[in-house]
């Protein structure tokens, strides 16, 4: 039996989605002519500005393409569902937003994305466009602390891209933009739990199996297995487990300042996210950590997967000012 979806032809889901996105947001974004998978900000790119190019597989909306806009990403290369975009649309993105100050690639750390973006960077190098790459690696559960560079990028992309977009929008040079993106990534920690699978529009079959009383801690945003599977627990227990894992690594001190993202993987509703946030706030207060800002909702989803993730992003003055910098994107506004 196939799962239920409102689609036409699963194989054309990404194309049709993009047409709907462009129809909805004509004041924010456009596709590069002849390259429909290259989505570009109408207002962001300009001469002398570093171009921030993000991208990745589809199915995580509003990540990635929803974060294209003034003050955030200049362009986004759009892949198939859960699949990195190929080099061509990445190259087209970079060319479209090149302001002569260099290009910054920022995306989640997945083998496929790395290979495709690297190929794109090689192609751009041949055209004398300088490209730097920063991988987001915020998924605490995906590799041990000593191997942070092997971790996946998940919902924490939000903070990483936000910092980079602000830096570029302030006309900082490529070196500075890269430094700030890396710093933002270093200060970003995410752990997620999954309760029920999503299904790809092409197959319409659940992309993993999970028992009726189970949850998986640390599951990736494509349904990649996490660290452990166990019985579904209460919201407070889940949050405690997540926060314990994050604190163990982040080791926040009294007086530290953080931004919080409580993110739905798809079908977990705001009610549950806010119930989680109540406990997040309590844990942070207990620890003497100040919460500068909180976002709650669907920011980095996995189609209709049930579950949620919590991201803590530690701020210093610089990162805070990047976070507070205004942005105006198709699917996100702040500042």
């Amino acid at each position, binding site marked *: 039996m196939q799962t239920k979806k409102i689609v036409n032809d699963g194989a054309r889901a990404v194309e049709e989605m993009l047409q709907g996105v462009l129809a909805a947001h004509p004041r924010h974004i456009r596709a590069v002519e002849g390259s429909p998978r290259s989505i570009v900000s109408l207002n962001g790119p300009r001469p002398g500005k570093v171009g921030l190019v993000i991208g990745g*597989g589809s199915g995580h909306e509003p990540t990635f393409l929803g974060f294209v806009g003034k003050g955030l990403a200049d362009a986004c290369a759009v*892949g*198939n*569902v*859960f*699949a*990195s*975009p*190929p*080099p*061509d649309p990445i190259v087209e993105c970079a060319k479209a937003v090149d302001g002569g100050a260099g290009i910054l690639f920022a995306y989640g750390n*997945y*083998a*496929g994305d790395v*290979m*495709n973006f690297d*190929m794109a960077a090689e192609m751009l190098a041949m055209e004398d466009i300088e490209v730097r790459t920063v991988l987001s690696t915020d998924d605490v*559960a*995906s*590799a*041990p602390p000593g*191997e942070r560079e*092997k971790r*996946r990028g998940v919902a924490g992309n939000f903070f990483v891209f936000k910092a980079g977009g602000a830096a570029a929008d302030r006309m900082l040079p490529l070196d500075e933009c890269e430094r700030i993106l890396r710093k933002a990534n270093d200060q970003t920690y995410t752990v997620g739990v999954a309760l029920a699978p999503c299904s*790809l529009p*092409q*197959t319409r*079959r659940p*992309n*993993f199996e999970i028992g009726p009383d189970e949850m998986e801690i*640390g599951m*990736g945003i*494509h*349904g*990649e*297995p*996490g*660290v452990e599977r166990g019985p579904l627990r209460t919201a407070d227990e889940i949050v405690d487990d997540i926060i314990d894992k994050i604190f163990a690594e982040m080791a926040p001190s009294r007086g530290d300042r953080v931004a919080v993202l409580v993110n739905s993987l798809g079908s977990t509703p705001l009610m549950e996210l806010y119930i989680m946030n109540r406990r997040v706030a309590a844990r942070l207060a207990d620890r003497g950590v100040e919460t500068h800002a909180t976002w709650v909702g669907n920011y980095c989803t996995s189609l209709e997967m049930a579950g949620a993730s919590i991201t803590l992003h530690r701020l210093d003055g610089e990162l805070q000012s990047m976070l507070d910098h205004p942005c105006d994107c198709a699917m996100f506004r702040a500042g």
Partner: protein
Amino acid sequence: MTISTDRLKAMFAAIAVAIEADKDRLCALDGVIGDADHGIAMDLGFAAARDATAALGDDADPTVVFNAAAKAFLNAVGASCGPLYATAFMRAGAAVKGKAKLEADDMVDAFAAMAKGIQDRGKAEPGEKTMIDAWLPAAEAARQARAAGASLPAALAAAADAAEQGAEATRNFAATKGRAARLGDRSLGHVDPGAASAVTVIRSMADSLADA
């Protein structure tokens, strides 16, 4: 018998058929340790490679065929397998550059270049539970068989057998790196989807060239 452009096109068509038939199994394998899309990606990629190579004129030489396959596969897919197979085909094309038709040794060289291309692009080592665990032993088996005087069909059949063993062996690898690293023992017992699809690709290459 030498391999003409038509034979190469037919080979890509044969791979596309085999992969399409295997699509659901590959998605299911990927669902266990990955993101459940490997069959979709491979199907898209080889369908595109088939279409792109089929569209080439009679004057296309083997290098042009491989390059067309590479480009089409890559642009249709992205993902992990896109750059890997695209690089494989580009390297195959480079290995036989300038030839109008391929002799048995050329084809074995091209095959070895594919494996090498995948490794260069992905930088995976044997035992890391990737398609490399099928492709490297396959290339080595083809080389040895050929060195021992086997025909191209026999060499490719040996490659397919070796790929099969290599893929099967990925069951015993607990992923220790990257994506599945934290899975630890939970990744044990499952075949890597990219290794599994490599078997299908190599087997259908061998079958398609069985009378070559």
